[in-house]
C-alpha cells in the first residue's frame, strides 16, 4: 500500500463528497416546498403571507440560488455547514450531538451481529449439513426476509407493550442514567443486528467452506497442527476477507439505513433531524447531514480498502 495509492483514493473520496453535496443542494431547491411557509404552517394552519415573505427575507431565501450555493461552499471550506432554517441552530452542532448517537447504535448493532453471525457461521461451516447448519440457514432466511420496521414493531409490542420488560423507545444520555441508557439501546441494537448477523453468518459460512477446501488446509492438518489452530490461523484469516468487505459495506449503508430503526424506537440520532429537515425543506440541515453521511460512508469504504490491502497486499499493487 503506497502513499500515492492512498492519496488517489482520498482525492476520489473528496470529489464524490462534493458531488453528493452539490446534487442534494440543487435537487432540494428544485422540488416544491417553501421552508418559510412550511414552518409557519405547522399543524395545518394557514400563515399570513406577509409573515411568510418576512421570514423568507430573514432566512436569506430571496437570494439567487447561485449565491446561496456559493455561501454554502464557502462555509463548508471554513468548516461551517450553516444554521437550521427552523430554529437557527448550527448544523454542525446538531450533527455533533446526533452523530455519536447514531454511531453508537450502529456500533452496538454491528457488535451484536459480529458476536452472533461470525461464530455461528464458523460453527455451521465446521458442521456442514448438521442440525444447527440447517436450522440457522432457515432462521437467517427469515431474518433477511422480514423488514426491520416489522421486527422493530414486534420487539416493542412484545417487550414493552405486552411484557413491560423494556421501555418502548426513547433516549437518555449515558451520563444521566447508564442503566436506562443501555435498556433503551438494547431493542434498537437487536433490530439493527438481525439483518447484519444473517448476512455475516452466510458470508462467514460460505467463505469458511471455500477456505476449508483449499490444499493448504489439508497440508496444515497433515502437518499435525491442532484443529483450533488450523481453523483460526489458516482458515478463518483467509475467510475473513469477504466478511470484512461485507461488514464495511453494511456499516456504511447502516449510516443511512438506521432511519427506520431510529424512527421506530424514537432514538434521536441523525435520522430524526434528517427526516424532519427533508419534510420542512430545511436546506442547510439536509445538505449538512447528507454530506456528513457521505463522508463517513466514503471513509468507511476507504478503511475497508486499506484493511483489505493489509490483509492481501496484492489488492494495493493491482
Amino acid at each position: 500500500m503506497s502513499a500515492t495509492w492512498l492519496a488517489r483514493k482520498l482525492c476520489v473520496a473528496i470529489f464524490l463528497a462534493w458531488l453528493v453535496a452539490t446534487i442534494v443542494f440543487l435537487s432540494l431547491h428544485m422540488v416544491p416546498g417553501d421552508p418559510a411557509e412550511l414552518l409557519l404552517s405547522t399543524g395545518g394552519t394557514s400563515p399570513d403571507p406577509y409573515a411568510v415573505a418576512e421570514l423568507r427575507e430573514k432566512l436569506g431565501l430571496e437570494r439567487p440560488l447561485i449565491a446561496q450555493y456559493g455561501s454554502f461552499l464557502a462555509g463548508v471550506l471554513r468548516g461551517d455547514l450553516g444554521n437550521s432554517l427552523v430554529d437557527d441552530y448550527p448544523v454542525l452542532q446538531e450533527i455533533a450531538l446526533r452523530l455519536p448517537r447514531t454511531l453508537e447504535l450502529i456500533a452496538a448493532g454491528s457488535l451484536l451481529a459480529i458476536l452472533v453471525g461470525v461464530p455461528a457461521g464458523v460453527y455451521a461451516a465446521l458442521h456442514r449439513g448438521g442440525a444447527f447448519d440447517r436450522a440457522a440457514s432457515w432462521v437467517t432466511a427469515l431474518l433477511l426476509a422480514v423488514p426491520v420496521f416489522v421486527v422493530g414493531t414486534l420487539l416493542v409490542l412484545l417487550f414493552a407493550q405486552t411484557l413491560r420488560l423494556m421501555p418502548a423507545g426513547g433516549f437518555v444520555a449515558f451520563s444521566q442514567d447508564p442503566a436506562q441508557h443501555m435498556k433503551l439501546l438494547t431493542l434498537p441494537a437487536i433490530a439493527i443486528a438481525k439483518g447484519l448477523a444473517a448476512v455475516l453468518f452466510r458470508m462467514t459460512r460460505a467463505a469458511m467452506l471455500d477456505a476449508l477446501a483449499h490444499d493448504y488446509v489439508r497440508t496444515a492438518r497433515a502437518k499435525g497442527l491442532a484443529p483450533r489452530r488450523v481453523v483460526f490461523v489458516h482458515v478463518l484469516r483467509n475467510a475473513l476477507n469477504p466478511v470484512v468487505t461485507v461488514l464495511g459495506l453494511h456499516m456504511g449503508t447502516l449510516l443511512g439505513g438506521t432511519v427506520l430503526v431510529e424512527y421506530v424506537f424514537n432514538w434521536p440520532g441523525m435520522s430524526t433531524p434528517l427526516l424532519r429537515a427533508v419534510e420542512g425543506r430545511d436546506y442547510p440541515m439536509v445538505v449538512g447531514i447528507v454530506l456528513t453521511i457521505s463522508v463517513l460512508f466514503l471513509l468507511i469504504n476507504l478503511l475497508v480498502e486499506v484493511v483489505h490491502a493489509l490483509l492481501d497486499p496484492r489488492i494495493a499493487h493491482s
Partner: protein
Amino acid sequence: MTISRRTLLAAGMATPLATLPILGRPAFAQRASGILRYGLSAFPPNLQPWVSTGASAGTVKLLIHRSLVSYGPDGNLRGELAESWSLDGEGAWVFKLRQGCVFHNGDPVTADDVKWSIEQIAGEKSTAYMRAQFQEVARVEIVDPATVRLVTKTPQATLPSWFGNYNTFILSRKSTPTEFIGAGPFRLVGQERGSSLELAPFDKFYRPGIPKVKGIKFVVYADENLRNAALQSGDVDMIEYVPWQSMAAVEADPRLKLTTQEGPFMDVLFNGTKPPFNDARVRRAVAHAVKRDDIVKVAFFGRGKPLEGVPIVEGTPWWDKELAHGWNYDPARAKALLTEAGYGNGFQTTLLATAQFGMHKDTAEIVQQYLAAIGIQCELQLPDWSTRVARGSKGQYDIAIHGVSADNNDPDGLTVVLDTSLSPAHGRSYRVDAPRTIAALAKGRGEFDQAKRVEIYKEMQRAALEEVPLVGLAWRSQGYGMDKSVEGFVNLPGALSNSSGNMLEQTYFG
C-alpha cells in the same frame, strides 16, 4: 475444533439471563416524585412565543408563558394576567391587569409589557401568527400601570379571544430575540434536543396551588404507535393525539383512561379560478355526493362524526340542527346540480391530498369513490406534505383534501378557512367567490350584541351552504390517553382541544 453445540446454546441462554438485572420498571419512580411524564407528538421546531409552530409546541408554550386571558375547562375565556376586560363607551377594549403577577425574572407584569408585546406581534417585521389581527389595533394606550386600552381601527367583538390563542403571550419587555421571559406556571429548565423537555414549577405564579405537579417531562414520540406503546407500557403517564386505531385499546385497558373531543375537521377545498369548480352548483354537487359515515369509519376507525355543514361546533349558540345538515348525502341531488351546471355527463379532474398523513390519503380515496359515482372522475395526486402545501397556496390543483382546526369555537375562528378573499393559503379554497359568506363573517366580527351575532352567523352558514367556500367532511376525534392516576386534566371542547395543554397546570396524580 472444540466449539460444541452445547457451548453455543449455553452462551445463548446466558445472554438474556445476564441482561435480566437491567430489566426493571422505573415507571412509578417518577410518578412518586410528582413529575408528570407526557408523550409529545413532535419536538417543538422552536419555542418562539408568537410564531405558530404547531400544537405540540403550543402545549409547551401555554405552560411557560401566559397571556391576558386563557380558556378554562368549560371552554370559556377566563382572566389570567388580566383580571377583567370590558368595552368602554368609545368601543375600545380595556383590560385591567391582575395584581401580583410576575415574570420569571421576578419583574411585575405591567401595562408597558402588554403594550410592548402587542407591538412586537403587530410589527412590520413580525412573523407572528396573530399579526394580521393585531394590526387591526390602531393604538395601545396605557391608562395606568395596571390598565391598558386597545383602540381598534374597526369594531372587533372577538378581540379578547385573540389573547386566548396559544401563539399570543405577554412577555417581559426585557426579552431578547433569543431569550423570552414569560409569566407561566412552569419554567423550561432543561431539554435533550430532539427528544425531551423538562419543566419545573414557577414558585411565584400568581394562582395559589398551581401548578399541581412537581414538574413535567415531555418525551417526544413522533410515531403514534410508539407513543401509544409508551403509554401502555408505563413509560409515560399521559400522551396526546392517541391514534384512532388505538383508542379502543386504551379504553379497554384497566390502567388507562381516554378523553376525546371532536374539534379538528376534514374538508374539501376548491380552486375557484377555473371551470368547473368556479361554479357554486358544481361545488354543491360535491358537497352532496359524499357519504361522510364512510370517512369516519375508514379514516378514523369510527372515532369522529360526519360533518354535513359549515364546521360549527355542536352545543355552541351558533349551531343549528338544520343548517348542520345542509350538505346531506344526496347523490340524486348532486347529479341534478351537475346537470344544471352543464356537466350532466360528468368530467375528469384532479384531487390533491398527501400520502404523508394517512387520514388525508384515506379521506381522499373515499371522496374519489363517491365523486366517481356521480360522474366526477378524479385523478388522485398524493405528493409529500411540503409539496401539498406549496401547490395549495399557489392554486395548483382542482380540488384538495385538507384537515385543520378552527382557531376557537366562535364562528369568527373559521375566518381563516372560510374567507377566500384573504391571501392564498394551502388551508383554504383558492379564490373561490363567496361574497355573502365573507360579508357575514365581517359583520359578525363587528357586532357586540350576542343575540344579533347568533343570527348573523346563522345567515353566514346559509350563505356558505350556497356559495360553498369549502365542503365539510368529518369531525375527527382528538384524544388524550392517560394513566388512571392522572387527575384534573380537561380536554377542552371543540376547536379548543389543541389548547388543552393549558390544563396541565391543574393536572395531578390522584
